[in-house]
């Protein structure tokens, strides 16, 4: 029906990452790569180390071993701000929005890194600062339009249902115009309809903006439907890697999810 999308070269390469918290091995020798424009899923049972993996890429955790190569630059550990400036945005499993602020302001906060005028000018909303704000606001409005949340533009985020808050969270990440978007369980706690909506938005983001997406998800159905390739973790180890079809047939993966027969 539609022309296939173009998957490019490796944009993010994770090599032999190990992460320990004291004696607890959260991740052991994990390697995988992410190609440009693809949707890459990381799946696994509870406590498999999915969020830890994302936090390593994101610079929240510093792994003891291994390296991460992003767009040709290799790091032994990432720094959150640097990561953001390089064009990696993320959403959170447990929402981290500003509950008292409106939808617009929350998404506007995602533009923070892009705003160049200084605090004083911004406070006075004078000259270049005003022009800059108008430009950013326009961008935010496009995101609002994209995510179809026009009706709640000025509603404080805390008053919105959970599914919509998740959408705002995605909106804030999109406001950074990321090249890579890390989504930490974007469908957790949603009903079927909200999940369908979110799936469509994830696919649309990938399609419209060409954004590379790394996605952690619990819902196997969702993962199999929308991802191009899947990494499976269990107890901090990689037990599978490949297309959804490959992974579905992998005996180790079946064992991890369903236990031994």
């Amino acid at each position, binding site marked *: 029906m*539609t*022309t296939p999308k173009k998957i490019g070269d490796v944009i993010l390469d994770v090599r032999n990452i190990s992460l320990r918290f004291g004696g607890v091995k959260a991740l052991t020798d994990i390697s995988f790569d992410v190609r440009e424009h693809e949707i890459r899923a990381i799946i696994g049972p509870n406590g498999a180390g999915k969020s830890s993996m994302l936090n390593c890429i994101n610079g929240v955790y510093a792994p003891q071993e291994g390296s991460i190569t992003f767009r040709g630059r290799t790091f032994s550990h990432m720094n959150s701000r640097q990561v953001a400036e390089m064009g990696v945005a993320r959403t959170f499993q447990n929402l981290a929005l500003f509950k008292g602020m409106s939808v617009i302001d929350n998404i506007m906060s995602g533009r923070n890194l892009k705003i160049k005028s200084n605090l004083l000018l911004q406070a006075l909303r004078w000259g270049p600062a005003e022009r800059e704000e108008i430009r950013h606001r*326009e961008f935010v409005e496009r995101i609002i339009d994209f995510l*179809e949340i*026009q*009706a709640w*533009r000025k509603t404080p985020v805390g008053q919105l249902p959970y599914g919509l808050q998740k959408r705002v969270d995605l909106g804030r990440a999109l406001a950074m115009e990321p090249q890579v978007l890390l989504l930490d369980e974007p469908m957790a706690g949603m009903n079927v309809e909200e999940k369908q909506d979110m799936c469509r938005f994830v696919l*649309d983001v990938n*399609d*419209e903006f060409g954004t590379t997406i790394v996605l952690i998800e619990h819902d196997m159905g969702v993962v199999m439907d929308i991802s191009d390739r899947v990494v499976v973790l269990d107890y901090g180890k990689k037990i599978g890697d490949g297309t959804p079809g490959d992974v579905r047939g992998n005996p180790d993966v079946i064992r991890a999810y369903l236990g031994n027969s």
Partner: protein
Amino acid sequence: MTTTFPHLLLRHAAERPDAPALREKEYGIWQTRTWREAASTVRHMACGLRALGFERGQNLAFVSDNRPHVYLGFVAVQSVGGVPIPLYQDAVAAEMVFVMQDADVAFAFAENQEQVDKLLEVRESVPGIAHIIYDDPRGLRHYDQPGLVSTADLLALGAAWDREHPGAWEALAAQVAPDDVSVILYTSGTTGQPKGVCQTHASFIASARGGVEVDGLSPADNVISYLPPAWVGDHLFSTAQWLVAGFTINCPESAATVQIDLREIGPTYYFAPPRVFEGMLTSVSIRMEDASAPKRWLFERCMALARRVGADLLDGRPVGGWDRFCYALADAAIYGPLRNVMGLSRIRVAYTAGAAIGPDLFRFFRSIGVNLKQLYGQTETCAYVCIQRNGQVQLNTVGAAAPGIELKIADNGEVLVKGVSVLKEYYKRPDATAEVIDAAGWFRTGDAGVIDAAGQLRIIDRAKDVGRLAGGAMFAPNYIENKLKFFQYIKEAVCFGHGRDQVCAFVNIDFEAVGNWAERQGLPYGGYVDLAAKPQVIALIGDCIAQVNADLAAEPGMADTQVARFLVLHKELDPDDDELTRTRKVRRKFVAEKYGVLVDALYAGRTEQFIETQVKFEDGRKGSVSATLQLADARTYPAAAQRAA
């Protein structure tokens, strides 16, 4: 005096080029187009269509929400001698197939990816749809089907064609005559297949002009266009009257934001079916019930005053000085803010049509100073037959004949209409046309009504629905159903009784209102099916029915048609399941057949009945819902005549 829509648009563009013609809220800002810009868009759209091979006499289907390109597209199509056919945008693909085939549609306009997908699905069975023009390119980048073109490309194509063919568009537009068909509106198909109603430029313009004169509409007015463009009401208000009066139409950002957009625009002229007003009143009532006691007290007091003098003030009847003073105070404290919350602050004239309006609802809006009036008409008459004049507004009638319209009641009680707004014909259906228009030009409306001494028309029921009970009493189901629906707890009702010895009713609860009621009663429930089956809810509905029965008992000739037994349905009647038409009218016969088991059980005097029904979801998937329904007896009253005797 006679003219065409493209000429009207060009005249506005020439006379007032910089005045606002349309607005659409996009990216959070109301974007205005002037008449000059509107005319230029129409010109380029029209030329673009020609460049794609659109010929005089062809039809173009519109499947879209209210967008500027839809309204401008209508005129563009008309200007090259084509006919626009707006379709209901929420119809599923299968429902569009018939119309697309019937109207030989080769060109279609789709709002977005969702509608394009539907049209592509339709194209599998109607291969004639060669060109699909889409307004919003989102998600369509990778579509490579033949014949897809965006409006942006269409406009560019048109601009180029215009340069290559100087004067061609003017020549085409000059060929359009007032007696040409300007639009084909498909009837909702309460009975059988939809029929295409062909209306000419002349009749829609005359109808619009009548309304514009009655209410003194001017270019200074603002309306919000949010009703389905396929509905005759929207076509009259947002297209015909827009071009005749030259006011500004405002397209909301999305269906979900209509209420917000309404408040931002503050229209001066407003049109809505009763359910929209009902929705406003329900949300006000719910919020008032949650308000603190002093606020509720103040609200009650002010509303009591409004009920007493509000309508008189609006109609200019004499009201005492003290009451005027109190009303002015209450207006500042309650009515004004209330109108503001509902977005009705600037309303000069508001109309309701499409269904009967509840007495409480109608009085409420008039009493707080909203000049709400009724009009009457159908697709076949450009929604223009009767119109209530200022100062002559009554609840029970739909007003006197509109300018240019004659009225007559047939022997069987059916309302007959002759005049400017009557349809030219049904598309390709001379048989159906002959059935509704007689040799002298009288159009049969299908409604049973009475004209009173003052010339005001009162509609009782659909002529074909009026039946008789086995005992011989006249049975007007809609009349009873409307009385039931006026209760906020009842969303929909269906009455049966023709050829039976008594009347029985199906009731759909209003989930929001009953849900709120249940919460206040501390009654836990787990969704629609569960709530509808609660004995307390059935008792609540029983009380409503008892009140209707008391009303009916008091009316001459109606006492026998009191509702004897009823049940509360476990699912909402839905257009997707064909139980309602797209304009949300009950398909009585279909419902009677589909729920035959329940009707039989009601008449057999049973107290419960199991039923399993198929449901269709919005995406076309099917499922089933089953429940065991409680059937209950309703309180009935002796006829008033006996009591009086």
